[in-house]
């Protein structure tokens, strides 16, 4: 006989009170532990709010907590605050710095005030768990493990990973893409897009200069793997004796079908994200220049125009429509989007494949006209950045 107990979420207080009277001592103790943890969390929040130096809601203030290798966020200790001094702990400082870079990226590039657009505070928890080889966004904060030291390194060492996790927060506060099947893979892909853009923006890299790897620093030197994922070449980030070959598809013909369960990665969300990842890379490579300019703006606007159940086809259509709205119908940018999706096996609705092929030429190969469009686009983007900066100042001042 097999039974399965899954811990879903916080147990309601009335149930905890009932469990406190249970005949089984273990059950009583478990209920008591849960109640103590909850009470401690409430108390800690009240105490933290009373200290002026700590992060308060708004203004995207950063606070890093040290879990001291436990899995308890309420018991984590304050390690660095927005106005506090640099910490002695390198993981704390790395998380603090990259949260700041990501916050600045969204403010300056998309005029977005933090994760929620309203100055949400940025809380990061480092040294989570024992040999915890993961990082995740739990709906309110980012959590980072130290890695196991054998396969995975400290997760705070990767800017693309930290920006990826913050990207989940942005997606949650814009469309809330459901975390399963195609909407989940899009959710994952958007986080990779944000992760790559934040890294490239920080380094000042063009699409051509960037390596388009996500989590390059995640593996220990003993592991012969380039990164967790490659947006430029999904399916080619690693090929080792220990793990086998990177299974990410780069085309709809290779779409991975897995069950919508935890064992199935909620419908292969970390696998099929390779398809829209490749489409973004191709768009950026075709347009040329910086990924966070035209390509990033098109993807960001498409994300905002999506909903929680958006699938690949709908998202592709939206990026095409947004490219036309932002850069004119038939522009080099819109044609780059069209060609990119076609190359990964998704035809834009209402556009014939023949037309797509005929018009899909890399920007720059159409002679002077394209060069002129790109020059004008660059000027528009420069103006957009200025406006975004002014908007950001107005928001911060308000």
């Amino acid at each position, binding site marked *: 006989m097999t039974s399965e107990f*899954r811990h879903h979420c916080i147990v309601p207080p009335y149930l905890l009170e009932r469990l406190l009277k249970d005949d089984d001592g273990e*059950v009583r103790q478990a209920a008591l*532990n849960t109640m103590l943890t909850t009470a401690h969390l409430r108390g800690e929040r009240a105490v933290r709010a009373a200290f002026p130096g700590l992060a308060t809601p708004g203004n995207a203030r950063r606070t890093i907590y040290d879990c001291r290798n436990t899995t308890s966020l309420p018991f984590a200790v304050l390690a660095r605050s927005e106005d506090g001094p640099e910490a002695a702990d390198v993981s704390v400082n790395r998380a603090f710095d990259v949260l700041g870079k990501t916050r600045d990226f969204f403010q300056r590039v998309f005029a977005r005030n933090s994760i929620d657009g309203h100055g949400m505070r940025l809380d990061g928890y480092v040294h989570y768990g024992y040999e915890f080889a*993961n*990082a995740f966004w739990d709906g309110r904060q980012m959590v980072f493990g130290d890695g196991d030291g054998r396969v995975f390194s400290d997760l705070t060492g990767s800017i693309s990973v930290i920006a990826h996790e913050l990207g989940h927060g942005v997606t949650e506060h814009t469309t809330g893409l459901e975390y399963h099947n195609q909407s989940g893979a899009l959710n994952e892909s958007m986080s990779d897009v944000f992760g790559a853009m934040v890294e490239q923006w920080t380094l000042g890299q063009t699409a051509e200069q960037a390596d388009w790897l996500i989590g390059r620093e995640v593996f220990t030197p003993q592991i012969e793997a380039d990164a967790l994922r490659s947006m430029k070449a999904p399916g080619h980030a690693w090929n080792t004796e220990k793990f086998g070959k990177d299974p990410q598809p780069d085309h709809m013909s290779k779409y991975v079908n897995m069950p919508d369960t935890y*064992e199935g990665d909620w419908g292969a969300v970390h696998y099929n994200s390779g398809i829209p990842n490749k489409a973004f890379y191709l768009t950026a490579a075709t347009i040329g220049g910086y990924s966070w300019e035209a390509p990033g703006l098109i993807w960001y606007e498409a994300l905002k125009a999506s909903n929680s159940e958006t699938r690949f086809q709908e998202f592709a259509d939206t990026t095409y429509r947004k490219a036309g709205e932002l850069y004119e119908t038939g522009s080099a940018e819109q044609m780059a989007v069209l060609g990119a999706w076609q190359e990964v096996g998704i035809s834009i609705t209402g556009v014939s494949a023949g037309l797509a092929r005929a018009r899909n030429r890399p920007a720059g190969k159409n002679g002077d006209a394209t060069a002129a469009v790109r020059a004008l686009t660059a000027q528009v983007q420069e103006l957009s950045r200025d406006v975004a900066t002014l908007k950001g100042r107005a928001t911060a001042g308000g």
Partner: protein
Amino acid sequence: MKVTLATHGGLAAPVLASLPPDVVDTHALPESDAAELSRLVAAAVPASAAAAGNPEPPKRAPDAMSHSITVEEGGHSSVLVQSDADMSPEFAALLRWLKEHVARD
């Protein structure tokens, strides 16, 4: 008693999917370790059972891993599943013991 730990999902889901689960058999452990493992399992089972009655759907935190601990004893098998984003202290203690034990080996 045989205890099997499998981890799914997370930032590196495809990598983890290729790794075999970790298995610990109390028959192969020193008596004190076996007793400790049995105590941790006994504490984790009721905590998971108490939470299993919750009618709300599981919380799907992006990139959170799910840990599945299968306990086999006397022809009976129980599977405890908890996520990074929502883990009881008892389950966390059992998970840590298993990881420490596997790392030691």
